[in-house]
């Protein structure tokens, strides 16, 4: 390792890359909004508008993208809800702190893309129909879909491209939706939760109660966020001179966190879809050797921050085997939603639900002046109430008590 020299320090230092200009003419595809609204005019589909209030951000080639602040319909992620539920709990907690209207629906399926990328036991029609069914369910509640998972986000961007460009696919999906008593609807924008966190990063920073200036974080940008349909990902000249996506890093910087650079930032996490389930040696080895060890050697961060289900899981869980092999591991892994919530004073166990994560995170909490023992005691007290049958579930009020 370490032969590769990338002038990342310079990139970080220079606030703005000299002479940087967005180049809309270089965007690889036409503006999807133009096609969406044209198809709507022709009666082919209905567009779900981004509700007000929204924040305008800029994507890779300079297009403006509207990020809704509220009236959102939360498209959860099977991986995070199943194995790292603090990721989504933190997103909901942030919404509640700001008093934003949102809905956490049960009329929602997974995008099914994890399975699709793993096993290919699906097809373009099925994938598009699953997406549109979910979007139609969101429209029925009068709210706008906010996508929690990086893979769902990337996959839906691809589905959009396919639906907009293939008349036959639209016809088939429309027929399926008719059978379900639904319309072919599609959102004006596909919005990932980390874009929403980025859009409200200054509001979060205004309400920050935990000082994080002495914290170093390494960022893993999720492949399916910025590599799939690259033109629809947020880029900002203030962050890496717009040479990399600005989400996550922009949020961390707003919270005062220092960014720990490492050379293999573009590499994936090793998740691999079918690999994490049935070829696990690949996932473990890649996560440890190409990501965690490189971060440790080059930046020695206090925490790794990312914005996708698979990435949090792979980077976190793979460290156990790495440790057994004497590898340089031992960095806690969290989502930007968890870090943002923590900065605003959320409980590390009742809200961030850190006990579902594997790699030791107590030193990180201690460095922030949070006593993990005391917090765990508080959580255990809440658990005792559940055990005694005094309550069936931990409520949002309990989480903030």
């Amino acid at each position, binding site marked *: 390792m370490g032969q590769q020299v990338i002038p990342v320090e310079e990139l970080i230092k220079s606030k703005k890359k000299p002479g940087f200009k967005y180049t809309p003419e270089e965007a*690889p595809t036409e503006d999807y909004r133009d096609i969406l609204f044209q198809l709507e005019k022709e009666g082919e589909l209905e567009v779900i508008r981004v509700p007000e209030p929204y924040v305008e951000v800029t994507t890779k080639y300079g297009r403006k993208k509207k990020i809704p602040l509220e009236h959102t319909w939360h498209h*959860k992620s*099977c*991986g995070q*809800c*199943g194995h790292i*539920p603090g990721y989504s*709990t933190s997103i*909901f907690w942030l919404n509640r702190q700001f008093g934003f209207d949102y809905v*956490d*629906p*049960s*009329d*929602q*399926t*997974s995008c099914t893309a*994890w*399975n699709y990328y*793993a*096993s*290919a*036991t*699906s*097809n*373009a*029609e*099925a994938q598009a129909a*699953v997406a549109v*069914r979910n979007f139609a369910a969101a429209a029925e509640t009068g709210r706008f879909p906010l996508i929690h998972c990086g893979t769902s986000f*990337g996959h839906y961007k*691809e589905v959009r491209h396919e639906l907009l460009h293939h008349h*036959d696919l639209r016809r088939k999906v429309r027929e*399926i939706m008719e059978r*379900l008593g639904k319309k072919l609807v599609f959102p004006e924008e596909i919005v990932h939760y980390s874009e929403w966190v980025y859009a409200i990063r200054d509001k979060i920073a205004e309400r920050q109660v935990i000082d994080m200036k002495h914290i170093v974080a390494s960022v893993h940008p999720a492949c*399916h966020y910025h*590599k799939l349909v*690259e033109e629809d990902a947020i880029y900002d000249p203030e962050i890496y001179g717009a040479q990399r996506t600005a989400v996550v890093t922009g949020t961390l910087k707003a919270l005062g966190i220092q960014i720990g650079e490492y050379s293999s930032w*573009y*590499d*994936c996490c*090793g998740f*691999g879809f*079918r690999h994490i*389930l*049935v070829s696990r040696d*690949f996932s473990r*080895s*890649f996560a440890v*050797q*190409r990501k965690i060890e490189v971060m440790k050697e080059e930046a020695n961060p206090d925490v790794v921050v990312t914005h996708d289900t698979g990435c949090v899981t792979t980077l976190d*869980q793979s460290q*156990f085997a790495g440790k057994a092999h004497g590898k340089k591991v031992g960095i806690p892994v969290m989502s930007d939603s968890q870090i943002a919530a923590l900065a605003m004073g959320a409980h590390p166990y*009742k809200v961030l639900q850190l*006990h*579902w994560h594997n790699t030791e995170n107590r030193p990180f909490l201690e460095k922030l002046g949070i006593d993990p023992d005391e917090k765990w005691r508080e959580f255990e007290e809440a658990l005792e109430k559940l*055990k005694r049958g005094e309550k069936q*579930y*931990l*409520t949002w009020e*309990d989480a903030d008590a």
Partner: protein
Amino acid sequence: MNFDINSTPLDLTGEKYRDVPYEEKERLFNEIKADVRFHDVLYGCYECGVCVAACPSARFYDFSPRVIAQAVAREDVELVYTLMNDSIWDCSQCFSCDRCPRGNSPGGLITLMREVAVKNGLETAKEALEGYGRIIYKIMSTGTQVSPDMLQPNAFPDWGHHVNEIAENLDLWRRALPPETLHTVETGWSVSEKTIIELYLIWHMTGVMDMIKEIDEGLFMILQDVMEERLEDAGYDVLFDE
């Protein structure tokens, strides 16, 4: 740095599949090309290797997205057949190769090739998906893929004692989640009955169950039973095996 720890050398000579008739290989090749997405994923290939440099699987396996893009672009039917059997399942579907200067998506091309392999029940696809059936069952029957009750020590021994702790406290820890939809154990979140019925109808109308039948007859039958019964209860007369 040598990461090539578990790789089996890829035999590109065509010897291995010499007995498979050329017409059969060509039929599968034409199926790949007939997919509506084909022209979005392959425009030709410069042989530049940018995709390989970015590819995680190329570091660990005898695997190259360049070879795959080249073989398909050159219409090398024999080589494509070999790759469809012995290479495509190594791909991690990360789409790092989407930075191809020619505008290709080798990863997207691989997705299409995998679909054709599954649809045609290739033995190598069955092997690649061995042990994966329970996941297909979960996603197709419940609408969520990874459920909390999958966190069992025997399923994830390499994640250490932490998994035991979760398994032991699963029900309690799930009840200690403030969002109401997350109190579930057998699904990622609670999915309403109406939603599941709509999902089953989608599987039925898009022929996905036919793919499952090709790849795993036993799984097909289990899914068929579950889905047909719930659909019937909901007033639908739907058969997956017509």
